């Protein structure tokens, strides 16, 4: 007998054991199965389900909170164990069967109005909508029967009846659920000969384009707006064929998360206005990167065509942004094409910039470097800097003998010794376990929209109480405005405030302090009061760290990890040489007029006005760089498009400058920079990992500083324009003109 024949026999004989039909047969004792050890064990015990031969859809996993809650259902004859309360559709997903759907979305409430998910259930007279039907023990679900197929085909036919045939000019084309599912489940011909209905398009603002005739009334967008975004702007009007989605009155959609309705709309009814007619999705190259416009570090995919970023869409990360991103993240990309610096420039005697070669520019900077005293050198890293460049900047300045280097937004004498002193210690997803929030001087809705969405989710799910201290703010969940100034904090800490009793009774209180406080003179006093509050509420325990700092900028956490803390408090006032690495928001008014300013960055923004030399650098979409988000999660951007003009990556510029200045830095590659970083902060190399903080409040010295009476102020004036990229963006300018609340 040849080997091949043997193998095929072995195959043939082993196949029935794995197939679902033999599972039932294991309880029949037949002589030939007795010598099979596994089935013999199965007979002795209750038969364990055979290893799933289908992989769950999208990596769906089941988590049994309580083993007693498990029930067993049969999907196409294949048994699955699922927790009680799951729907039929979820059970099918666990079993590896993807049910077509339009209205069901696992992060939204169940509407059950599209009927696409019909499946057959044994003993039920009609097909049932699986998304809305709870699975019952022993249910026999059939997803592949003629009845189910016919039901889907019928639903498709009804949906397509009133759906325009404009796929060739529709921006959703190619990534449209309706298109895909009509190919998979629809009929091959239509019977509809009447006139299609049409719906007036609505104006939802500068971000979302509507073609309402395409809408299939799945109400995902309405549910998203009310449940996740927390605005009651969208709704359903009319009945029957007159049903329309709209904003009841002429009104724009004013949510910082509005762009997400573009992703969840299964058809092309809601599409991106800036992206309209710009590209087809199949010609785009996707690069998995992260967002740097705030400190959250939302996971994004940068879709580019050639050298141009065409759009930004979210990527799933349950720990950070789930599957949403804020409008700033999504639509800031046109800022990457405007106001870019593309050549090294030197300011002439007459105050104009002249384009020069890199060689000349670096020579000028190096010469200026050597004409000042080491203590007069100052370096400021910008909001968007990656860890590599900040490491290089610090090393360069240290080699020049100066240690006055910091990252903007971090304040001047920030305490970088304890990692827990500047991070969101509970973690963004950890906030869901909190049952009480105290927001101190922070407005998460504008400072970190995704963190705000988490808090809102928690508040909705668990009725957690929210106390807020700060200027009047528009938070989109129930909250109690406790006061505007820090004196309320003292009252809470001393137990004189009604909120203290809530705090004491809370199991997992989360105190969120805004990073805007870093800029206050009395920040140490405020932090010690906040720590007292945390102690009072027992917020810092081995199993729960509820004292959180919510940072503002992408670079902040990494800067503090790397120890970018200035030596002297007022170094800018005496500086003679200032190196701005993308820093646009430092206050240069106090800078002596004869100081030499180098601006290294990618946008001609505020920092350029005072600069003597401009060194063009790469933006986050063009380089590989490590960023740490506000909860200490290390991630990296990847280059999606080539750099603009003659620009270079940030750390390379500093490395080249160091050599021209005669103090060469010892690294030539990204890998070498990173290994240098690992000697300072080893966790920065653990990509996509969150380094938890070890912390006890006790190690901090007592603070004797007096707290000032100044109320907390708004840290982010305009949500849509916070950094060089967003300020250069036309879409963001439109948004702030139309949408920000006056």
């Amino acid at each position, binding site marked *: 007998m040849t080997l091949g024949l043997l193998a095929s026999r072995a195959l043939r004989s082993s196949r029935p054991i794995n197939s679902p039909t033999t599972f039932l047969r294991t309880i029949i004792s037949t002589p030939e199965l007795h010598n099979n050890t596994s089935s013999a064990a199965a007979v002795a015990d209750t038969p364990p389900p055979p290893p799933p031969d289908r992989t769950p859809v999208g990596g769906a996993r089941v988590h049994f909170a309580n083993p007693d809650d498990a029930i067993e259902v049969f999907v196409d004859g294949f048994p699955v164990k699922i927790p009680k309360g799951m729907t039929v559709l979820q059970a099918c997903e666990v079993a590896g069967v993807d049910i077509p759907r339009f209205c069901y979305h696992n992060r939204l409430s169940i509407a059950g109005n599209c009927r696409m998910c019909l499946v057959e259930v044994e003993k039920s007279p009609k097909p049932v909508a699986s998304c809305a039907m709870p699975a019952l023990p022993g249910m026999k679900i059939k997803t592949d029967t003629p009845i189910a197929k016919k039901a889907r085909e019928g639903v498709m036919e009804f949906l397509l009846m009133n759906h325009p045939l404009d796929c060739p000019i529709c921006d959703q084309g190619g990534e449209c659920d309706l298109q895909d599912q009509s190919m998979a489940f629809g009929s091959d011909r239509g019977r509809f000969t009447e006139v299609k209905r049409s719906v007036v398009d609505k104006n939802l603002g500068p971000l979302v384009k509507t073609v309402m005739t395409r809408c299939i009334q799945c109400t995902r967008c309405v549910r998203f707006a009310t449940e996740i975004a927390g605005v009651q702007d969208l709704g359903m009007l009319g009945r029957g064929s007159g049903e329309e989605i709209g904003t009841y009155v002429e009104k724009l959609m004013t949510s910082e998360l509005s762009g997400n309705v573009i992703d969840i709309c299964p058809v092309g009814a809601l599409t991106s206005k800036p992206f309209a007619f710009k590209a087809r999705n199949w010609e785009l190259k996707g690069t998995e990167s992260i967002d740097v416009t705030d400190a959250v570090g939302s996971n994004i995919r940068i879709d580019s065509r050639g050298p141009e970023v065409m759009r930004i869409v979210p990527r799933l990360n349950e720990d950070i942004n789930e599957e949403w991103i804020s409008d700033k993240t999504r639509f800031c990309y046109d800022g990457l094409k405007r106001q870019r610096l593309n050549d090294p420039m030197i300011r002439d005697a007459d105050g104009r910039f002249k384009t020069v070669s*890199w060689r000349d520019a670096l020579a000028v900077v190096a010469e200026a470097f050597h004409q000042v005293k080491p203590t007069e050198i100052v370096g400021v890293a910008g909001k968007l800097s990656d860890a590599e460049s900040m490491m290089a900047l610090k090393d360069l300045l240290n080699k020049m003998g100066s240690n006055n280097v910091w990252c903007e937004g971090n304040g001047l004498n920030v305490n970088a010794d304890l990692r827990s002193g500047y991070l969101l210690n509970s973690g963004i997803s950890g906030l869901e376990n909190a049952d009480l929030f105290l927001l101190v001087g922070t407005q998460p809705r504008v400072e970190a929209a995704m963190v705000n969405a988490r808090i809102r989710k928690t508040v909705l799910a668990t009725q957690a109480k929210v106390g807020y201290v700060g200027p009047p703010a528009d938070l989109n969940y129930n909250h109690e405005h406790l006061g505007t100034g820090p004196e309320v904090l003292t009252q809470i800490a001393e137990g004189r405030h009604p909120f203290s009793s809530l705090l004491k009774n809370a199991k997992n209180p989360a105190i969120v302090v805004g990073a805007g406080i870093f800029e206050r003179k009395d920040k140490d006093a405020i932090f010690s009061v906040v720590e007292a509050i945390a102690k009072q509420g027992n917020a810092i325990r081995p199993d729960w760290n509820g004292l959180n700092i919510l940072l503002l900028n992408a670079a902040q956490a990494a800067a503090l990890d790397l120890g970018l803390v200035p030596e002297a408090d007022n170094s800018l006032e005496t500086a003679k040489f200032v190196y701005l690495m993308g820093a646009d928001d430092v206050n240069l008014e106090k800078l002596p007029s004869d100081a030499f300013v180098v601006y290294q960055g990618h946008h001609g923004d505020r920092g350029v006005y005072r600069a003597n030399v401009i060194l063009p650098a790469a933006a986050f979409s063009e380089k590989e760089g490590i960023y740490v988000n506000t909860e200490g999660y290390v991630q990296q951007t990847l280059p999606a498009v080539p750099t603009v003009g003659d620009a270079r990556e940030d750390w390379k510029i500093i490395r080249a400058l160091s*050599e021209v200045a005669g103090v060469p830095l010892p690294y030539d590659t990204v890998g070498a920079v990173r290994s240098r970083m690992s000697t300072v902060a080893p966790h920065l190399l653990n990509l996509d990992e969150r380094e938890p903080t070890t912390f006890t409040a006790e190690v901090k010295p007592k603070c004797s500083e007096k707290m000032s009476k100044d109320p907390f102020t708004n840290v982010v004036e305009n949500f849509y324009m916070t950094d060089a990229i967003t300020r250069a963006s036309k879409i963001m300018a439109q948004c702030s003109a139309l949408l920000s609340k006056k």
Partner: protein
Amino acid sequence: MAFTMRAVKVPPNSVSLEEARTRTFEFFKSACRSIPTVMEIYNLYDVVTPSQLRSNIAAQFRKNAHITNTKVIDMLLFKGMEELGDVVEHAKQRHHIIGQYVVGHHGLSQDSGTKDEGASDFLKNFYKTNYF
């Protein structure tokens, strides 16, 4: 029109290496003489100097210095003259000239100098491109 009037007659072959050599020098001189015109019509003042152009032309000649076959030299001369004619007649555009004679293999010729001899490989690469 200059293009149609152009003499398309091929000169007779050089009989000896000596004659080919003189012709080459003649051609080099005429090329050098046309540099001011070229600078003018392609507006090259901000990217290159006449001497850089001249050395570039000389480099093109030296590239073929090892050739001794008169037929090959004649052929190269013919090609060179044709190219020179095209350049002088403005049959090319500015980016052709910049691409071929100003930006060589080493970036803008104004950038390449003897200045960074002691520089590390990193720095030399850095001056050329971001991608290395």
